[in-house]
């Protein structure tokens, strides 16, 4: 197992290197630069700003320099926000995204697993059709529709929550529901499929025959196999959830990391783009690994391979 993990980590190094290189050159190929603005700055001012950030050096030299800084864990200054470094910005915004992501993940798992399990157990009844229809809607309704709908109902109409912001504990509810809904729907469908397959297996019948109770069969025997598809989906999905969502953060005014993925590119904030891309890439790599390890642990068949 340790060897497996170590190998995966080593494999991640070239992946991250390629991502960093591609990001660097793609960003520089994009027309427009960090100091383009509607009111043009004079050529002198532009030249001084470029010199300040080392953008006047030959491109390849800049590339080497940035790679060196990245290896030292220094993501560089932000062009858009002078006085802040990319490290600071990520350190500031990531905990918010992490919190929202965890809450959304809880929504996704609790609702998704429950709905999926019940639907599988009561196949082709109302207990199956209603939650699965809801899940279909959850999958189809984009967050930019779901969010304003929830705000309209619960914030503006019923006045239970604030329309946006991230100040009070109750400000977490609507964004978590909005962000979690899509994942809940996906989890529900995967879980239903997984359970349907497992419940027909011989070992479940054996467990029942031996007189195991409902809860025991369900949680002890069926759950492990039933959630396999969910686990492999969750690896990359959790990375996406925890690193923030541009849409949800914009709609609800959440000061998270997700918006930087988009705004940094718009602003041509080169170091910020590199920082957020690499941060996200590392997250995906690590969580995929965690998902793989979990799958091996859950599925005895894989252990021998």
């Amino acid at each position: 197992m340790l060897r497996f993990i170590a190998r995966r980590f080593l494999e991640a190094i070239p992946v991250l290197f390629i991502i960093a290189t591609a990001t660097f050159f793609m960003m520089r190929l994009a027309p427009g630069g960090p100091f383009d603005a509607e009111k043009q700055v004079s050529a002198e001012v532009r030249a001084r700003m470029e010199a300040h950030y080392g953008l006047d050096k030959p491109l390849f030299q800049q590339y080497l320099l940035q790679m060196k800084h990245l290896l030292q864990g220094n993501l560089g200054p932000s062009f858009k926000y002078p006085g802040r470094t990319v490290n600071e910005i990520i350190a500031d915004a990531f905990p918010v995204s992490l919190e929202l992501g965890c809450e959304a993940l809880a929504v996704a798992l609790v609702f998704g697993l429950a709905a999926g399990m019940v639907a599988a157990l009561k196949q082709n009844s109302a207990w199956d059709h209603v939650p699965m229809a809801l899940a279909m809607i959850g999958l189809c309704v984009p967050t930019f529709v779901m969010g304003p709908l929830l705000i309209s109902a619960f914030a503006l109409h019923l006045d239970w929550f604030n329309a946006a912001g991230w100040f009070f504990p109750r400000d977490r509810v609507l964004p978590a529901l909005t962000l979690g809904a899509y994942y809940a729907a996906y989890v529900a469908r995967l879980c239903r499929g997984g359970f349907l397959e497992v419940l027909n297996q011989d070992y479940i019948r054996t467990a029942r025959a031996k007189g195991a109770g409902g809860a025991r069969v369900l949680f002890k025997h069926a759950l492990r196999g039933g959630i396999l598809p969910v686990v492999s989906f969750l690896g990359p999905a959790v990375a996406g959830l925890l690193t923030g969502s541009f849409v949800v953060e914009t709609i609800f005014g959440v000061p998270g990391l997700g918006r930087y993925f988009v705004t940094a590119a718009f602003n041509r904030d080169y170091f910020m783009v590199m920082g957020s891309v690499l941060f996200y890439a590392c997250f995906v790599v690590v969580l995929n690994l965690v998902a793989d390890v979990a799958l091996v642990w859950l599925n005895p068949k894989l252990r021998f391979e």
Partner: protein
Amino acid sequence: MMNESRVARKVYLTLLTVCVVALLAGGCGKRETLAAIGDRTQELRLNNEGEPASLDPAVEIGNIEHSVILALFEGLITADPKDLSPRPGVAESWKISPDGKVYTFHLRKNGRWSNGEPVTARDFVQTYHRMLTPSLGAQYSYMLYPVKNAEAFNLGKITDFSRVGFKALDDYTLELTLHSPAPYLLSMMIHDSWFPVPIAVIKKHGALDDRTNPWTKPENFVGNGPFVLKEWRMNSHILVERSPTYWDATNVRLNKIYFDPTESLDTAERMFRSGQLHSDPQAPPSKVAFYRKYKPNLINVYPLLGTYFYKIHVTQPALKDKRVRQALAMTIDRHAMTETIMRAGEEPAYFLTPPNTAGYTCQTKVREDAAEARQLLAEAGYPDGKNFPTVEVLFNTGVQYHKAIAEALQEMWKKNLNINIVLHNEEWKVYLDSLRRMDYSIGRASWVGDYVDPSTFLDMFTTENGNNETGWSNAEYDRLVHLASNTGDRAARYDAYQKAEAILLDEMPIIPIYFYTRPRLIQPSVRGWYPNVIDQYDFKSIYLVPEDN
């Protein structure tokens, strides 16, 4: 099988119950809104439309930064919120020499930084020295260019700052010497680039010319304005509190101001509606008509010092002939655009400088006359649009109505001139880059004045101006604009500007479309706030009155 499904069903029902209880517990019943609480405690909540890039008045200043900086710093001059006329700030009084070239400011003796140090004339001189230091790369350093040798120092042509026209005669007397009379100097001085910064504090946290110096973080911050910086949480809020050291602290009525960075117009409007904000400067265009009709006490629509127009790349073969450009400008139904597309009370623009800019209104107007336009196009060699090449209209994505306006242009030109236009949109920075490299034929543009004077609009189309971006150059226009900026006499200046703008509107390197307005949502509890063309707050005069009083 029955057994398991019963368990699952139980789990399910428990979950639903928990959810319903949680939702109910979340709020239940009408709560007092944040705005209503603020009314009682004098805590203003404003949407500031974005995250400030920096709070250093020398570094990067747009509207977003400007609003916060106005609360944190005070210049020599402040602006009357109603008509923006100059009022005493740090300077108690000032004298202008008869030739208009020497300004002497007498500073008040009780001006204090938030660390208790006095605000002196030396602070101002050092601030301007920093602002003009080439290596700082201050974007708005040109705001100081009316001062003698300021430009030369900023461009590195001279290195001795004592030759620049800033002089502290004593601790409380500051003298400015200009290279030529600039009657708009006082109105320029309400801009952040003229605000003092605490040099000693900046030095403590890094180099003076380092734009990334962290002195504006709340823990390091020192200012001289009516408020001090307390919290700055990126993309969440900025909180400022009344400064006890401010010279006029007893007349500041607000205790706190929260600046909210919400960019999304819809989110901000919902926050306003749910009572989280006292004011949101920009109602979504789709909601303006609703508010004006049904909630007129919550919206205030007023003109801004800004123009929406199109630039024409005049060296392009098809657009070289001014008759073609005139024809294009004459066949736009501006009224239809403001009424059906914009719908926020915008005024159609028949010239570039917004009407009544410091008393100046252009007397020449673009005529809308399709028949004459067709005639002009025919004279230019394109009768009924024949042989006219397909021209591209460039606009940027991200704002919905840019596209709608470009489509309307396309339609109007097809109908009136029978010419074909293709629309081309580009992402913001790509679009800016295309304009800069003049890789376009006709391109969307807009301009918001830096200060209230026609020069901030008309300077733009002189040959050497970096924002010209049209390839248009006219010696007489350049001469008139330079004449105006070197003349102290207002009547003579405005006469020169009238002539210059008439040339601009005859040559048509640009097509004005409309003048901007601000559809501001504002709670009736906000008092002492006045609309003005640069949408500048006067936080000293604003206060809140609870609704039921």
